[in-house]
């Protein structure tokens, strides 16, 4: 473990942290899938209301996506605008 500088350690841990932050992608995936599934079954039951169902589904999916994007933002901050390096 000799020869590892503090900066290298911070960079390595930031990379791991960015990877861990993207685990947040699981939630939106499940949520959007559920919304799309119910949207499909709603269109099957009432094909006339396809336009309304589509727009409602897209809106719900976009809101569900937000948590994933928070994870993405944290991953980007860790990778490209790392605030921890400055603390060394």
């Amino acid at each position: 473990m000799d020869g590892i500088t503090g900066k290298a350690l911070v960079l390595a841990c930031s990379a791991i942290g960015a990877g861990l932050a993207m685990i947040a992608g699981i939630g939106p995936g499940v949520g959007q899938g559920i919304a799309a599934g119910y949207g499909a079954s709603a269109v099957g039951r009432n094909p006339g209301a396809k336009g309304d169902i589509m727009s409602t589904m897209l809106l719900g999916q976009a809101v569900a996506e937000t948590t994933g994007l928070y994870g993405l933002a944290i991953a980007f901050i860790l990778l490209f605008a790392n605030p921890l390096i400055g603390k060394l």
Partner: protein
Amino acid sequence: MRAGFLLAASGDVDFMIHGLFKYRLFGQEFWITTTHVSILVVMLVLFVFALAANRTMHHAQEVPGFFQNIVEMIVEMLDDMVEKSMGSYAKKYRNYIGSIFIFIFVSNISGLFGLRPPTADYGVTLPLGIITFCIIQYNNVKYNKFGAFTDLFKPIPILFPINLIGEIAVPFSLSLRLFGNVLSGTVMMSLIYSLLSKFAVGWPGFLHIYFDLFSGAIQTYVFCMLTMVFTSQKMPQES
């Protein structure tokens, strides 16, 4: 040969904002960045399109020509969208919603033309979110009067901090959603182009269609839709 040679980035993976020109104002350093340039290009395109559309509609014909048809289609689509979700309040807001729809859409698909999309800069999306926030709160105070404040204490007073955070988080979630989606598309495309430099010929077009066109259109729609939904929530419901 090194393992993973094919996937080694040849140069720097480049999708960051670059400063082009520095100037000082009131003792502060300011930068003209690539975002400014691409926003200027977008504005010029929209300006020329608006001038052309204005000219065409001044000499509008009974049987619309090609360009007049397109302009009428765009206006009708935007009007329909606003009317559907705002009802009788649509008249006041179709100008604003139409403008930001066209601006965000053209910004999002500007990645197709080699620009760095302006919406992939948080400095562009946050002001859009803040404008939405101002509209929401203006309507809240206008229609609910003092209720705008007392609503924060419903259903029980102890929920006040959570309600307050819920109101303040709106511009941030709106702007982060647009920013994150466009930025992730930009990053993916530049990763593909720089990592597979020799093999990325032609076929990334499919990815462009997904990341720039599809994702951009959906996010534009969602931003405008959420703006309208949040705004009309604060207005008295028509019976």
